[in-house]
């Protein structure tokens, strides 16, 4: 009975994993690095760097959604912020809508800000409690356009309509709204300047289950209607399967697997992707009791002191001697599928017998 209602298959617009390369990429990221230095001792000597994002590359074709998944501390949020230059990245190249974002001077950067926006995780913290909804949504208009107050009010109403909020709410304050409604306000603010690209940083993580679907459906409807391109950062693998066309899996600052959605979920290649997918509990007692789980031992290593070689080697059940020496590069193993793992490169030796712990 439940299955009958979710059987419409791959009919999502702009979907269809294979066709992803036809449209030119709106977003191109090359070897993006974001290091945070830390200092020690009386003289505050530079003692090392936390490599939050350590050389990631991906592309997002216009109108598509790339899901960026991983656990806390893997650098997914930092990556999202760095590529919009909300942080000053250590190195790398980012092209968004034809602009070389990393090379722009502050004033030029400010002028292209309207094309790239962000929706934040916690709508409570990202909305100023002392501003009305109209002021919050209207602020980017005030900053970046020459609209007069009448035009601004019209645009605010239009945005409220778009995100499904009542126009009468315009003069209320954020605390008068529920979590889902606050997230709609955050989305309206991001849409105010007609962006092309939106980084959605865990936009549904703070919401209740019954509200998550409302917000995700809204994001999808807006994408269709306005031709938006999303980077959807999330730890919710089921929701990413629903919304994304392609998915990048991050572990300790690097992308370990980048693939079209259907191939990744049907047949994850990287041992970490496999473990991550097998750890998600499914709301189905039958399959839960039959399921072969890969339970990883230990915790994610500290990014201040990452293991030598492959960062996942300390927890991987397939670890080989070679893995502890050299970090694997992200390589294409099939059309549209990239994996960073020595199991898929040719130069590996036999598995280390004592390795599985």
């Amino acid at each position, binding site marked *: 009975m*439940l*299955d009958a*209602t*979710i*059987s*419409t*298959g*791959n*009919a*999502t617009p702009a979907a269809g994993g294979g066709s992803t390369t036809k449209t030119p990429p709106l977003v191109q990221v090359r070897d993006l690095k974001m290091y945070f230095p830390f200092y020690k001792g009386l003289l505050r000597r530079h003692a090392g760097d936390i490599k939050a994002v350590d050389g990631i590359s991906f592309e997002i074709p216009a109108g598509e959604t790339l899901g960026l998944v991983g*656990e*806390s501390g893997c650098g997914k949020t930092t990556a999202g912020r760095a590529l919009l230059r909300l942080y000053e990245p250590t190195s790398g190249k980012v092209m968004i809508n034809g602009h070389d974002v990393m090379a722009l001077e502050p004033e030029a950067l400010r002028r292209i800000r309207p094309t790239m926006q962000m929706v934040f995780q916690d709508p409570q913290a990202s909305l100023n409690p002392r501003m009305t909804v109209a002021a919050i949504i209207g602020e980017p208009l005030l900053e970046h356009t020459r609209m007069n107050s009448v035009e601004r009010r019209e645009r605010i109403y239009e945005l409220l309509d778009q995100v499904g909020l009542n126009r009468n709410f315009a003069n209320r304050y954020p605390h008068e709204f*529920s979590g*889902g409604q606050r997230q709609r306000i955050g989305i309206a603010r991001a849409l105010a300047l007609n962006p092309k690209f939106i980084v959605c940083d865990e936009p549904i993580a703070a919401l*209740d*289950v*019954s*509200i*998550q*679907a*409302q917000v*995700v*459906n809204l994001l*999808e409807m807006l994408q269709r209607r306005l031709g938006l391109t999303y980077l959807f950062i999330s*730890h919710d*693998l*089921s*929701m990413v*399967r*629903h919304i994304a066309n392609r998915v990048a899996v991050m572990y300790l600052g690097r992308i370990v697997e980048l693939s079209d959605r259907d191939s990744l*979920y049907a047949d994850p290649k990287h041992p970490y992707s496999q*473990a*991550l*997918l*097998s*750890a*998600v*509990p*499914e*709301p*189905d*007692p*039958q*399959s*839960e*009791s039959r399921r072969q*789980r890969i*339970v*990883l*031992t230990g*915790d*994610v290593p500290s990014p201040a002191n990452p293991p030598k070689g492959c960062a996942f080697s300390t927890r991987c059940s397939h670890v080989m001697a070679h893995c502890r020496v050299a970090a694997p590069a992200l390589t294409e193993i099939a059309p549209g599928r990239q994996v960073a793992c020595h199991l898929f490169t040719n130069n590996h030796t036999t598995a280390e017998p004592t390795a599985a712990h």
Partner: protein
Amino acid sequence: MDELPATQTSVLQVRNLTTRFRTRTADVYAVNGVSFDLKPGELLGVVGESGSGKSVTMMSLLGLLPSPPAMVQGDSVMFDGIDLLRCTPEQLRQIRGARIGFIFQDPMTSLNPVFTVGFQIMEPLREHMGLSGTAARKRAQELLELVGIPDAERRLTDFPHQFSGGMRQRVMIAIALACDPKVLIADEPTTALDVTIQAQILELVRELRTKLGMAIVWITHDLGVIAGIADRAMVLYGGQVVEMAPVAELFARPLHPYTRALLKTVPRLKGPRAAKLEVIEGQPPIIKAPPAACAFRARCSVAMERCSRENPLRRPVGPEHEVACFWDASTGTAHHA
């Protein structure tokens, strides 16, 4: 409100529990006539969204809510032959942490940052079991080993910040298990953890259950966790139990419109992908008067006129399966009771 047979075998028997909070503007009715039984050794999953009353129910029956603003009433909460609702605060204090253990959602805020982990595990042992320093220390070490913390003896002298999130939650479990409780209440114990760490904790709980045999109440909003770990589940909405069933039955044959909608709204990891997610329109209610109607009616797709006149009582619909709804899911018509 609900009539359930009083079984001798339940370790915890809750009857008609009601909690309201007095606020400046209005009374908020958080728990409205909750009744349930917890059988020995079973794991009862409590599912609901924020504000559904799942945590407040558990905190009320153990006297953990400050009064005012909370006002807890009910027919009875029987545990071990004692009615918890009629206990003095001192008697409740003797029971909490000893015969009933707790695990809370956020291990960082529920552990005291200025005391060592060893001290915090030994506290209930000294307090409730009267163990001396050395005996308590030995038991604390055993407990850390039980929950799978390597190098237990040395870790006793570490402070909470020296543990990772998953390890901290293991420490919380060790503290909850310290005095061999008959009942363990776990309030969203894995919600703050990453999925791979959650999988470790779920594995640990499965193992400990068979080893120690206590009854567990597991509060969560994650239907996947319930499916994987619980024997029976109880769905709360608007401070009331709307459906209760063995887990396999609940997922195979959900009968309350809310349970059905909730199961449909969650996207799956496998199987066909929906083009559009099913949505439960509207918001969960804030109930400001004693409920005289179904709390879900405003968001319900099969609501009838009767639903706004009367609050449906829980009725049996199958073996151990109860639902509080006037609509009959099997026939798709109104149930005449």
